[in-house]
């Protein structure tokens, strides 16, 4: 490649790419630990976020298995009713706040500066602060197991469910400190989330490399910017509501104190004003991963880039106006019912646009069925099914029949596991080589994928049925004559198949870290800037500031005769 080669996004062309051999830091254990604790590097913080979330994923997974053991047969006495309440509260709270948000922020932290050609996030120290305060929140929540001695004295984690409806959380009904641990830990991790959201917005809009106009930002940073906006307007209300709860519990306030005229419904409104947009905070990063992975393994540019951006922004705004569909059975006017039914159904338009765009990207592509692509394809199918039950539940009349039943539990686990967890796995397979410099084992990956798909469908397809038969959520046991026994046994069995799949994945992560095939800078023949730097990337990210002229700078670099810019 000569010096006169045109359209070179990175100084010096493909030979000019930084191919410095990544050096591993050596030092005593104390020095290594110290370097991780004081780091402000976005890559190290990203790894910290992801590791923190994966540890809690295992913890909350074990809690899910304990729940499933208890429910597998009628009249089971595996755990007590009180422990069961703690288990599902901690499972839900952990999965949303200590797994979902941190892992997504972890990928965002790691990838956004690399994808937009920046040296670091806009505010590296704020970044470190956000991680450590979130981590403090998580540790505080789990400290409640030993520190929150409640009335029973058995050591008490919170037992008020993840939405913690008032007035159950008031001092009169929840004495002791269980709810305090819950509220304070969520305030702490909420501050961390807001800090990270501010950081991501500033990074995406203010740190882009030369040539990366708004319509050339890869879709992952774009979607993270949208997610960050939702975090700002949705997590803040939760923080406000938690502050009110603490005022009630510690200063004798009456916000949710029904004896003094306070309203239990107001808490429900405040919680779901946070709670529903939170679903999109979790699912949009999953979309973002799909937007990066599906084109690379279909060997085509993403179909409908502007439509993808517009649909994401539309989801953000619609998501702010649908919260009361969680509250149809609380009782609303018929106008309220109609409004929230319609606004909820509106969500299916932008999500439908996204689904068709992914399908159109795959259509006619030269598909490579590597593990990340397998997870992505399963994601599309499962997300569509989750969306269909979502439309069913949005109809208020149907919702009255199935509210708080296992049908709802099956629906949202279809989104959370079938879409989000699947895409998190896809992302881990896809970017693990970039982060560690080594490939994850493909054979183990296939085992992981197929066991996961089979286990997932055994569990969550079946779970819809006891819901339709009337099984309510959050019950610790049930009568034998209800006809739910066999179904619950099947659901539990599927849960254990998924657990085996996850164990294979954990083994794969550890094994490949030491023994995996060396990845090189660009193992997937991909197109975004993170693949132009060595794996793992050097501390400084880019040896020279990149300049881009299209959405796929590495494509331009590899195919100087067929540049993207004229087609965008």
């Amino acid at each position: 490649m000569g010096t006169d080669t045109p359209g070179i996004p990175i100084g010096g062309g493909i030979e000019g790419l930084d191919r410095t051999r990544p050096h591993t830091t050596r030092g005593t254990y104390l020095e290594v630990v110290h370097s991780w604790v004081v780091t402000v590097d976005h890559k190290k913080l990203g790894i910290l976020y992801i590791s923190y979330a994966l540890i809690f994923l295992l913890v909350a997974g074990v809690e899910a298995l304990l729940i499933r053991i208890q429910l597998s047969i009628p009249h089971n006495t595996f755990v007590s009713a009180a422990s069961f309440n703690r288990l599902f509260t901690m499972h839900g709270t952990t999965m949303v706040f200590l797994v979902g948000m941190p892992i997504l922020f972890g990928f965002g932290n790691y990838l956004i500066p690399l994808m937009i050609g920046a040296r670091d996030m806009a505010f590296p120290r704020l970044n470190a602060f956000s991680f450590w305060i979130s981590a403090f929140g998580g540790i505080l929540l789990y400290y409640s197991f030993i520190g929150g001695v409640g009335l029973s004295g058995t050591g008490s984690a919170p037992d008020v469910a993840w939405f913690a409806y008032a007035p159950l959380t008031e001092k009169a009904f929840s004495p002791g400190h269980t709810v305090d641990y819950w509220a304070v830990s969520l305030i702490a991790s909420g501050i961390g989330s807001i800090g990270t959201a501010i950081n991501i917005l500033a990074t995406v809009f203010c740190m882009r490399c030369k040539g990366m106009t708004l319509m050339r930002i890869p879709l992952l940073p774009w979607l993270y910017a949208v997610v960050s906006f939702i975090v700002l307007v949705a997590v803040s209300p939760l923080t406000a509501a938690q502050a009110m709860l603490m005022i009630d519990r510690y200063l004798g306030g009456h916000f949710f104190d029904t004896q003094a005229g306070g309203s239990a419904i107001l808490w429900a409104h405040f919680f779901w004003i946070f709670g529903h947009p939170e679903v999109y905070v979790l699912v949009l990063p999953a979309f973002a991963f799909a937007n990066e992975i599906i084109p690379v393994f279909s060997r085509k540019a993403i179909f409908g880039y502007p439509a993808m951006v517009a649909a994401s922004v539309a989801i953000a705004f619609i998501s702010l106006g649908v919260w009361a569909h969680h509250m149809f059975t609380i009782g609303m006017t018929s106008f309220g019912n109609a409004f929230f039914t319609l606004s909820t159904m509106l969500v299916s338009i932008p999500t439908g646009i996204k689904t068709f765009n992914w399908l159109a990207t795959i259509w006619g592509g030269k598909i490579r069925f590597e593990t990340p692509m397998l997870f992505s394809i399963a994601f599309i199918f499962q997300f569509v099914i989750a969306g269909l039950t979502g439309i069913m539940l949005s109809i208020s009349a149907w919702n009255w029949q199935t509210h708080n039943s296992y049908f709802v539990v099956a629906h949202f686990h279809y989104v959370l596991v079938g879409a989000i967890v699947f895409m998190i796995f896809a992302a881990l397979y896809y970017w693990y080589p970039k982060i560690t410099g080594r490939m994850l084992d493909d054979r183990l990956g296939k085992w992981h994928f197929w066991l996961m798909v089979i286990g997932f469908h055994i569990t969550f397809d079946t779970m819809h049925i006891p819901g339709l038969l009337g099984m309510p959520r959050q019950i610790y046991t049930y009568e034998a004559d209800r006809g739910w026994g066999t179904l619950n046994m099947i659901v539990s069995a599927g849960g254990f198949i998924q657990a085996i799949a996850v164990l294979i994945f954990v083994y794969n992560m550890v094994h490949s870290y030491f023994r995996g095939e060396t990845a090189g800078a660009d193992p997937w023949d991909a197109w975004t800037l993170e693949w132009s730097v060595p794996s793992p990337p050097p501390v400084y990210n880019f040896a020279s500031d990149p300049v881009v002229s299209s959405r796929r700078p590495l494509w331009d670099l590899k195919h100087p005769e067929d540049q993207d810019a004229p087609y965008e």
Partner: protein
Amino acid sequence: MSTIPLQHVENEPWRLPSRGVVAMASLITAESAIFTIFVAAYLYYLGRDVVGPTPREVLEIPILGTVCLLSSSFFIVLAEHAITHARMKAFTLWWSVTILLGAIFLGDTAREWYKLIVHVHLTISTNLFGTTFYSLVGLHASHVIIGLLMMLVVFAFALTGKVEPAHAERVKVLALYWHFVDAVWVVVFTVVYLIGR
């Protein structure tokens, strides 16, 4: 093969928004959401008290504080203007006037709270009005305090000659926060002292 795109890119000036402004705008968005929730709670609980006192009985319109706080926004604009044009003496003057006006507002709130707590015996645990009033007005007052502390830091640097015209953008970001604190007071004032009374 086309050389046009890259040359185009190389030649065009590359301007990005200020990260300080974007970050402060984001923070203000988040804070607005928090205030919205407290305002919603205040409005929802108006007139639902089981026991007195009611706002109409005990609240007086805090004219002095409101005038001071709202006019401080004008003086901080003068300070921003001064530092942009490198007139550091004027900057220090307008900056100190802003701080003074903010402090008077805070003193006015303290006087109001003293009267309510000591003489009227309205505390945060008395009734719904007490709970919502002290949380909403207190939330705003805590923002005033944070703003004042940050402005005092800048003021201390200005007195020791450490603030230079190069810091104009940082000063503007801080001023943005102060404008937000002012704007929120317009809402809180309307809700608590006009609608609620």
